C-alpha cells in the first residue's frame, strides 16, 4: 500500500496535476506519524501509511497557506473523507479544486480507537483514487452511541458534576479547535467567535464558567457538522472527553432529522436548512 501511495503521489507531482500532497510522515518507527506537505516528487518517499495515521488531514485543505500553494492532493481515511464532504457542502472548496487520495482503512490505533467500532465509511467513496481494500463496515454490536447512552443513564446533577470536573482541567489551548476540520474560521484570515472581543461574545476567562462557555460554543458550532473523527478528543492535553458532547449532537441530528454529517454531499446541511415537518414536541 505504501509503495502504491508513494507512486501515485510522485506521479501527481511530476505531472503537475497537484502542487502539494498533504499526507502522513513518520520520523522514526517509534514515533507517531504526523502531517507532511510534499511539494517535490522525490520527497514522496517520506510518505507513510499505517494504523497510527490518526490525524484528519481534511483540516489542512481550508488553510490559506495551503490554498496559496495551488491545487492540493489530500490523503484521507473514510472518516476524514466525511469531513471533506461537509466542507464541500459548506462551499469551502470545489470538488475539482482538490485531488482526493482515499485510503481503505480497517481502523486506526492499537487497540482500535473508539470511533472505529462504529465506522460507517471504511473505504472512501468520492476519492479520485482509492488505495488498498478494506473489510466491509460492520455496525457496532452495542450501537454507535453506546458510550453516550451509558453516560445519559446518570442523573442531570451527576452529569453536570462530571463536566465540571472535566472542564476544570481545560487550559484553553484550543487544540480541539486547531485540529478540527470544521473549525476553519481562523484558517482563512477570519477570527473564531471566542477570539472576538468587541464585544466579547464568549467569556474567555480562565474560570470554570469561561471553560464551560467555550465548550458549549465549540460543541454547538459542530452541531450537524461533526463527523466524529475524534481528533479534538485525541488532541486534548487535559484528556477531556469531547467525544461525548459531539456524539450527543450527532445522535440528536440523526434521531430528529435522519441526518448524518458527511455521508452525502447532495443533502443540505442540517443547520442551514429546515423542513416544515420538523418535530416540535418541546414547543408549547
Amino acid at each position, binding site marked *: 500500500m505504501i509503495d502504491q501511495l508513494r507512486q501515485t503521489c510522485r506521479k501527481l507531482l511530476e505531472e503537475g496535476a497537484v502542487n502539494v500532497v498533504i499526507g502522513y510522515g513518520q520520523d522514526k518507527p517509534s514515533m507517531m506519524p504526523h502531517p507532511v506537505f510534499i511539494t517535490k516528487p522525490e520527497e514522496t518517499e517520506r510518505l507513510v501509511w499505517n494504523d497510527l495515521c490518526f490525524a484528519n488531514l481534511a483540516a489542512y485543505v481550508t488553510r490559506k497557506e495551503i490554498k496559496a500553494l495551488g491545487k492540493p492532493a489530500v490523503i484521507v481515511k473514510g472518516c476524514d473523507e466525511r469531513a471533506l464532504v461537509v466542507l464541500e457542502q459548506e462551499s469551502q472548496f470545489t470538488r475539482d479544486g482538490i485531488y482526493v487520495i482515499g485510503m481503505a482503512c480497517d481502523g486506526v490505533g492499537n487497540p482500535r480507537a473508539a470511533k472505529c467500532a462504529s465506522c460507517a465509511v471504511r473505504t472512501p467513496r468520492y476519492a479520485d483514487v482509492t488505495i488498498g481494500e478494506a473489510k466491509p463496515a460492520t455496525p457496532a454490536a452495542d450501537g454507535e452511541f453506546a458510550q453516550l447512552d451509558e453516560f445519559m443513564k446518570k442523573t442531570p*446533577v451527576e452529569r453536570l458534576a462530571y463536566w465540571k470536573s472535566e472542564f476544570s482541567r481545560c487550559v484553553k489551548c484550543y487544540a480541539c479547535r486547531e485540529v478540527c476540520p470544521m473549525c476553519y474560521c481562523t484558517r482563512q484570515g477570519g477570527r473564531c467567535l471566542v477570539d472576538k472581543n468587541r464585544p466579547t461574545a464568549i467569556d474567555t476567562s480562565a474560570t470554570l464558567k469561561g471553560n464551560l462557555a467555550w465548550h*458549549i460554543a465549540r*460543541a454547538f458550532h459542530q*452541531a450537524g457538522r461533526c463527523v466524529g473523527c475524534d481528533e479534538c478528543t485525541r488532541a486534548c492535553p487535559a484528556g477531556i472527553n469531547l467525544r461525548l458532547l459531539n456524539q450527543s449532537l450527532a445522535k440528536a*441530528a440523526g434521531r430528529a432529522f435522519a441526518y448524518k454529517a458527511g455521508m452525502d454531499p447532495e443533502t443540505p446541511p442540517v*443547520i442551514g436548512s*429546515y*423542513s416544515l415537518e420538523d418535530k416540535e414536541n418541546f414547543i408549547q
Partner: protein
Amino acid sequence: MSDATGFEPKIVAFVCNWCTYLGADLAGTNRLEYPPNVRIVRLPCTGRIDFNLIIKGFEMGADAVIVSGCHPGDCHYTAGNYHARRRWTLFRELLETLGFEMDRIHFAWISAAEGKKFQQFITEITEKTRALGPYTAYREICEAAR
C-alpha cells in the same frame, strides 16, 4: 406573591418582535394580569436568538428562560422560526448531555393575537419555577474561582 422563603423567580423571556412581543402588548392593553417575574427581551426574530443568550440568561441570575416566537408559517422573515426550531431541537440535546435542568428552559409559539395565551404561559412558567426554587447549579459554576 412570595412564598414563605421569600423566593421570587426571575424569568427572562427572549421574544420575537413580530408576534410574542405584540402578544404581550395585547395582554397589557386587555388588562390581562400576569406575574411581574418575567423580564422580556425583544429580538427581531427567533432565528436571531443565539444559544449563548440562553446561557447568558442563567448567568445573569435567571431561574428560567423562555424563548417564544411566531407559529410555523407566520414568520415575518419567512423561515426564521423554522431555522430556530431546528437549532433548539439540537441545542436542547446538548444542554441535556451537559446536565442543565431542562424544566427551566421553555419554548413557545405565541402570536400577536394570543394575549391570553401569553398570560397563561407566563403564569404557568412562573408557578412551575417557583415550585422548582432558585437555579443555583449554573450560578455556582459562574461564581467558582479557578
